[in-house]
């Protein structure tokens, strides 16, 4: 079966997000004062797997072995 996994990688709670801080500042300059602002990175990957659970497990291994750095990142995986 072909699945599309969507992986979202974000900084762990409490981690400094310098890009978010700069973007928030730029938005405020444009007249959009934002309260909290967080950034994240999204990967959309198509893959072949036996079932949705297997697709999710493969995506989890991708995160653990390359896409995320466990020191600073957390991630979520959606399968469709």
């Amino acid at each position, binding site marked *: 079966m072909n699945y599309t996994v969507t992986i979202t990688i974000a900084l762990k709670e409490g981690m400094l997000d*310098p890009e978010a801080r700069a973007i928030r500042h730029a938005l405020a300059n444009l007249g959009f004062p934002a309260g909290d602002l967080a950034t994240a990175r999204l990967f959309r990957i198509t893959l072949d797997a036996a079932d949705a659970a297997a697709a999710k497990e493969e995506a989890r291994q991708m995160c653990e072995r*390359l*896409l995320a*750095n466990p*020191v600073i990142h957390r991630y979520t995986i959606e399968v469709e």
Partner: protein
Amino acid sequence: MRFAVVQFGGSNCDRDTHHVLADVCGVDTDLVWYKDGLVRPYDAVVLPGGFSYGDYLRAGAIAARTAIMADVVRHAKGGGLVLGICNGAQIGSEAGLVPGTFTLNAYPKFISRHVYLRVENAASPFTSLYREGEVVRVPIAHKEGRYVAPADVIARLNREGRVAFRFCDEHGNATPESNPNGSAENIAGVLSEAGNVLVMMPHPERASESVLGTEDGVKIFNSMIAHIEEHGRQEA
């Protein structure tokens, strides 16, 4: 005695590092293309600065997962010396040679300037020619150099003398103002548990000849050479 300087696609301090080792320090040094692997024993492996794989994903993340890094990890586990400089530090931490990681500077821009470092541990294979507490002047050039690690890891690094260098002012005070990138506790260089791996964001190879304005960095390479002369080659 033989050193290797590993070249990844996008390394750009490889030849500078080779020049310092071969021409300034006078040690036999091979430039090793990453696809060739470490095909002979080396006393020390240097991961040089640059922008391997264009810093895609995270600086050092992709280079850390190449086959030659398995060779480098094996070399380190056997007790061989590994020095990671700048992008080499990012690669080394991504490969798990030291705990923690180097990520986007607190103010997210590229910084290229000279900084002061305080030598925190003058007993390691990389720092034995310094005095503890000595203040040295070496350049940095990075955008992802802020050292981050869990609090318990940093406590352990402090306890075990594994912080090799801290960013400081010219008098040796590790202040927030003298911390260029927001690194945890001004940490600029970290040693592995066994002490035979050093990763550091500053560039000692750019501070190894008087014509460059500072020779403070060359003691790192000469400390490594002295260590190897004393202890011999550690075979994996």
